[in-house]
């Protein structure tokens, strides 16, 4: 059964615990705003280093890791788990088992992530990029992820639908990988491996966070919401499974591409580059499926805000996945590694693709959770255009800055470092402007969601 629609999967009785999903989403909104604002404040420091500079808690290094923790864990991970609590019951036709656990995990996660973030500002970080939270927070994080994983697995075991739709594959695998990977990257690696081995395994961890947690959870959303919203069957279930296995096969081995030309064994670096090339496969399977599924429904882009976000995210996904393999090549690495180019790539993927897809899902789900229509389509439209405009400015500025600085530093050895900093400082200014437009967009979004829940028009019950 490749056709999924809310009708075919949902049923007479309500299976989604709406309140739980809503609460997870509310918590993700908080970090969406805090995390992005921290990014915006950090970006101002590139042009005005004294801005908020005399307070240790707000100094550059600490704010920068606070930004990452805020958006990657506070925002995306929270939203993704919330989505799982919506999508899994819909696709299995059963309620999530142990309903109280969804709330308990939320409270535990609120405490964990909030304390973790405060620790970063206070100067307690364990020195692992994208795993900065200190050890005791990591243990709590593993508990939250672990219990959520078990809960989802048992729910699927109790399922009423025999067929396991591709989104379920992605969600179960994503959760499992996230647990394993979090243990490897945060509990084992920093304490048992030194130096070069540590860096190598850190690369592995880092790319598994983006490739085996953020990507599968985001892709699960795309595969669920696209058919449900367009009411078209998924173009090819086989293709979607091919993409899944491609991801599982090629992603974990590419970590060393974060440390090319380092003392890590050359063959490990080479495999990581080859594997990066192969990632084109799973990406194309997702994109082909999206285009196929959209067939005959492109006109929905003008009327449905969620379709707009899905399509724009897909466009960015195509760019990400051309950029990724290209920048993994040694000749490209020479220039763009260590520069703003990579920062552009990171935002393109996590913001441009997965944050946008999450928003698409939320625009669709929120009315179902609250029983009210989206408060203002006009604000939703503002959200879309602010995000698109802001991000375009940011991305172009970062890529230009990366090429300029990378060129200056690596094509000649006699250019003083500080001259390269001065040369790209106008681009940093542009990035800030773009970034603050993005933040404005996100603020509009959160306001719109809040008002929807408060005063949106009631939807007439449809059976």
């Amino acid at each position: 059964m490749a056709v999924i629609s809310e009708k075919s999967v949902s049923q007479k009785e309500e299976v989604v615990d709406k309140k739980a999903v809503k609460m997870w989403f509310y918590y993700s909104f908080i970090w969406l705003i805090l995390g992005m604002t921290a990014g915006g404040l950090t970006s101002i420091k590139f042009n005005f280093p004294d801005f908020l500079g005399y307070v240790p808690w707000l100094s550059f290094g600490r704010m920068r890791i606070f930004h990452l923790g805020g958006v990657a864990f506070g925002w995306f991970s929270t939203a993704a788990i919330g989505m799982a609590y919506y999508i899994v019951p819909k696709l299995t036709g059963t309620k999530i088992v142990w309903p109280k656990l969804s709330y308990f995990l939320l409270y535990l996660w609120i405490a964990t992530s909030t304390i973790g973030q405060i620790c970063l500002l206070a100067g307690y970080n364990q020195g692992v990029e994208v795993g900065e939270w200190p050890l005791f927070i990591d243990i709590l994080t593993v508990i939250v992820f672990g219990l959520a994983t078990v809960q989802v697995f048992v729910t699927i075991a109790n399922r009423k639908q025999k067929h396991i739709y591709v989104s379920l594959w992605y969600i179960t695998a994503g959760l499992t990988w996230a647990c394993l990977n979090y243990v490897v990257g945060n509990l084992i690696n920093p304490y048992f491996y030194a130096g070069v081995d540590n860096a190598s395994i850190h690369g592995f961890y880092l790319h598994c966070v983006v490739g085996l947690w953020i990507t599968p959870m985001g892709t699960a959303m795309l595969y669920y919401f696209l058919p449900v919203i367009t009411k078209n069957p998924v173009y090819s279930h086989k293709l979607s499974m091919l993409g899944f296995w491609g991801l599982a096969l090629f992603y974990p081995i590419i970590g060393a591409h974060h440390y090319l030309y380092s003392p890590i064994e050359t063959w490990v670096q080479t495999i990581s580059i080859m594997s990066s090339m192969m990632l084109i496969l799973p990406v194309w399977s997702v994109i082909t499926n999206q285009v196929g599924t959209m067939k005959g429904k492109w006109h929905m882009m003008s009327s449905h805000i969620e379709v707009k976000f899905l399509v724009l995210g897909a466009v960015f996904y195509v760019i990400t996945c051309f950029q990724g393999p290209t920048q993994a090549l040694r000749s490209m690495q020479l220039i763009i590694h260590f520069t703003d180019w990579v920062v552009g790539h990171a935002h393109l993927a996590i913001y441009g693709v997965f944050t946008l897809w999450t928003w698409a899902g939320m625009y669709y789900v929120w009315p179902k959770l609250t029983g009210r229509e989206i408060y203002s389509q006009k604000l939703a439209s503002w959200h879309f255009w602010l995000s698109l405009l802001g991000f375009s400015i940011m991305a172009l500025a970062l890529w230009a800055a990366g090429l300029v600085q990378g060129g200056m530093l690596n094509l000649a050895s006699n250019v003083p470092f500080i001259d390269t900093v001065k040369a790209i400082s106008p681009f940093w200014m542009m990035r800030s402007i773009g970034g603050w437009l993005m933040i404005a967009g996100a603020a509009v979004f959160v306001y719109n969601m809040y008002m929807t829940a408060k005063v949106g028009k009631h939807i007439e019950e449809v059976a």
Partner: protein
Amino acid sequence: MITTSFKGAMLGAGFGLYIASFIVGYAYPAMTAKNDVPKVKDIHGNIVEVRPYTELEKRGREIYIKEACWICHSQFVRSAGMDEKRYGPVSQAGEFAYDYPATFGTRRIGPDLAREGGKRTDGWQYGHLANPQAMTQGSIMPKYVWYFEKDSNGEPDITKPTEDGKALIAYLQRLGTSIGDFRNPEGNKKASSVSVASAPKFTPEMVNSGKAIYEANCAGCHGINGNGAGPAAAALNPPPRNFIKADYKYGSSDVDLFKTITNGVKGTAMPAWDSLTESQRWEVIAYIRTFEKK
């Protein structure tokens, strides 16, 4: 119930491929490559032992991690491109054998620090840590003023770093030094044995290039117009020299100045400038001289 094939497949995806990749690509090389043996080839080609961190350096490394310096500074010299020319000999695995976790970094908002040890004097490092913009005009590095005692005006006193501040600089001064002093491979103390008989004749071109060198390196202490009152000067005792008054302590001929600039002044914040080439040092003197006439 979960079908057997589903269960098997899930195990394959979730555990198998992840763990297989980890073992093949990461854990196996980590076991076999002997990256964690603290030995390096030094600048003369001998295999030498890397000494563990001292307590002070260890503390400094903790501060380095705590302030997330690693977000802005990478710590390995790549085996390609201009890295070697720019920063020094390519990094070797043994140099990192004591690093839990590694601070390789993935970003260079500031320069690589893998070979920072010995590049600058402690005095420069303290001045820079407290006020990077004073030392490198246009720098965007934060001012780490909380690693210094406050003077009577509430400004950080760069001659009085806190214990943590000292530890941090001790750590920086140790970075990349286990291969020996590549900046001075013969070990002849060129710094203390400056032997120049006479100064070149100063030309307007020299003054011109001297201006840029001065503004990038000296203005932070000596002031942009040479009055000895640069942004970092307030906290310095003795204060930086005022080049307008030009009452020099250690001899006022060009050759005397050359010696002072090359060696620095021990016990004061005045760094040794052997990092500048000889001709750059002459150029900066040519420029300093222009202050006097005003």
